[in-house]
């Protein structure tokens, strides 16, 4: 068995599951902050095997899901403009903006949209198309923002002036603070995002345990990781010794990645940001620093983000805050399906509504 398979080992998982059933002596409501965890729990078939006393809630950790309607409207405003090529990661293509429009539709109508696998691909696209302006759609958390920042630095070093970034990056810890301040959320523990934590390390989460007395476990994406983390949560609830624990040591250093943070905060600085379904969260977004302002698509191309009204009937905000399970949304599976999503939680591959719709037997 190779090392990757060992984290999916059925025998090991069954042992951990048995221990979880034994150890759980009171209900546990935990939130998987990261959408990839939500999908991992469904894909591994873990959900029906967990003790009944465990309720798992999906959090605001799917970057596509929390991209605000007005931000999607800004993408769509640029799509189709003369001389503009939009470069994006694939999962933004189907995200509905106001009136259900999306980038797929814009592309079919003639907008130049290129799916890229890295922001560096977008930079190369700019070099190959000197007569056009390539705008990279900067969506994602701390995992993605450093590579975007590094790409902006490369563009500056190369003197590529036709490369811009529409920066809608968001930061995870401020969103956790909003959830913890909301008494309706009632979360016992957080399954903290593995990918984001490779950059952040433990420190930015310490307030979760220290100020709010809520355990948090940084976790990998295999069933062994998730089960071991649930056991850690249960043990912490029992002992009352609430801490932030790094279960994902094979990928996450306790101190995170200082160089990545340095690059990210060298190009960007924090500012208030709009989160779909949640609203404005102080200091939860990234904007360009003065030195790099010429790469800011908002400024360079005169894009204005006008606060769009919430999509009528869409409960994605309640789902993202753990106040509602996807199946309890009146639109779930009726007016809102992966074929015709009303909200982003149904369209994203990491969205909780899509996971419930696609995987529940």
């Amino acid at each position, binding site marked *: 068995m*190779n090392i*990757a398979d060992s984290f*999916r080992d*059925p025998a090991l*998982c*069954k042992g951990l*599951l048995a221990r979880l059933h034994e150890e759980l002596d009171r209900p546990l409501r935990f939130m998987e902050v990261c959408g*990839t965890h939500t999908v991992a729990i*469904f*894909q*591994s*078939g*873990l*959900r*029906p*095997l967990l003790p009944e006393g465990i309720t798992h809630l999906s959090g605001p950790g799917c*970057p*596509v899901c929390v991209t605000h309607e007005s931000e999607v409207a800004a993408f769509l405003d640029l799509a189709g403009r003369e001389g503009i090529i939009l470069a994006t*990661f*694939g*999962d*933004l*293509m*189907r995200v509905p903006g106001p009136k259900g429009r999306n980038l*797929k539709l814009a592309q079919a109508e003639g907008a130049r949209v290129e*799916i890229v*696998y890295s922001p560096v691909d977008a930079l190369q696209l700019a070099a190959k198309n000197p007569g056009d302006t390539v705008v990279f759609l900067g*969506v*994602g*958390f701390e*995992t*993605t923002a450093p590579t975007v920042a590094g790409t902006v630095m490369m563009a500056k070093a190369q003197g590529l002036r036709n490369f811009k970034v529409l920066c809608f990056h968001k930061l995870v810890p401020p969103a956790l603070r909003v959830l913890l301040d909301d008494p309706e959320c009632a979360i016992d523990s957080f399954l903290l995002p593995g*990918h*984001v934590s490779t950059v952040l390390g433990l420190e930015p989460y310490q307030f979760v345990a220290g100020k709010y007395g809520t355990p948090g476990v940084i976790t990998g994406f295999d*069933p062994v990781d998730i089960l071991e983390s649930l056991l850690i949560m249960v043990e912490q609830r029992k002992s009352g010794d609430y801490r932030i624990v790094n279960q994902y040591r094979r990928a996450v250093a306790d101190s995170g990645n200082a160089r990545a943070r340095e690059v990210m905060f060298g190009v960007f600085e924090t500012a208030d940001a709009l989160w779909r379904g949640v609203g404005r969260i102080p200091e939860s977004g990234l904007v360009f620093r003065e030195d790099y302002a010429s790469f800011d698509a908002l400024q360079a191309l005169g894009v204005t983000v006008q606060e769009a009204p919430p999509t009528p009937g869409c409960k994605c905000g309640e789902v993202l805050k753990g106040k509602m399970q996807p199946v309890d949304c009146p639109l779930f599976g009726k007016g809102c399906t*992966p*074929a015709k999503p009303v909200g982003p939680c149904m369209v994203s*591959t*990491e969205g909780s509504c899509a996971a419930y719709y*696609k*995987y*529940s*037997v």
Partner: protein
Amino acid sequence: MSKSPLADTLSEKTLLLDHGSGGHASSRLIGNLFFRHFDNPILNAMNDAARLDMCGPISMSTDSYTVDPLFFPGGDIGTLAVHGTVNDVAMMGARPRYLSCGFILEEGLPMETLERIVVSMAAAASEAGVVIVTGDTKVVPRGAVDKVFINTTGLGEIIADPAPAGNCARPGDAVLVSGTMGDHGLTVLSGREGLNFSTDIRSDSAPLNHMVEALVTQVGDIHVLRDPTRGGLATTLNEIAGQSGVVIHMREADVPVRESVRNGCSFLGLDPLYLANEGKLICILPQEKAQAALELMRSMPYGENAVQVGTVRDAADGPGKAGQVVLETPLGGHRLLGMLEGEQLPRIC
């Protein structure tokens, strides 16, 4: 690479609109390229249509091929155009015999590229034992198509009685696959996007008609045969479950996926069960015949990794509803394996 035979007979190295004109340039292209490589008496007769000798129930299928890149590890658009249609015809429990072939070509295409494709097609047809008996060539202005589009239509004699069909899966049947899933889809995707995985990822493009003929004649009682091309194993099984009104129960641990494909998919956020295959088949037949079918497939080219991946169940035997595919994970949990909505798109993080 050997020197293009066209270089010996023609001065043309680049395809021009003239080559689709129907005049001398067209004649030179047809005579010196297509006839030279597809050589057979029916085609050589040069009539407006092919005269064929066939009788009994016939299987017919058509497909168009538009792959990017044109050449990839394990094949090219030419091998796909032959294998894809040969396999579709064969999945009716048929012996494919004839192919037609229509080219839509972009002005400016290097003649050498076209010849490489035609040579591949001739070799693929020869291995499958089919002959290309009629064809058509159109040349369109630059930008009107992406280099080369190929349409092939296949005809074959149905040798299974009754012929397998998508609505014939029955509770109690075994679900077999002839090998690993996702190889072709990931190869083409990584080629298109310039993702240079330093691994053994290559397309599985292959003719399956000889395997089908052996299954039909030596094992028999085949209820369903399908090749899981676009949409992959997951989509094809959903189609079968829907057509037959049954639940298909799959065991994830039994589905063969190469480690390199699994790792590549994990990196890109893709699921190998939804990726296209071009040299694999799904065979559904009574459980008591499963072992014989597996042994036969494993003894043949392109079938060495054949395994049983699941069973067909009645909806009343749960979990799952009629028309659904239920996946049992290695942990013993169950989840739906649904149809894909649109194409798979790589994720942000």
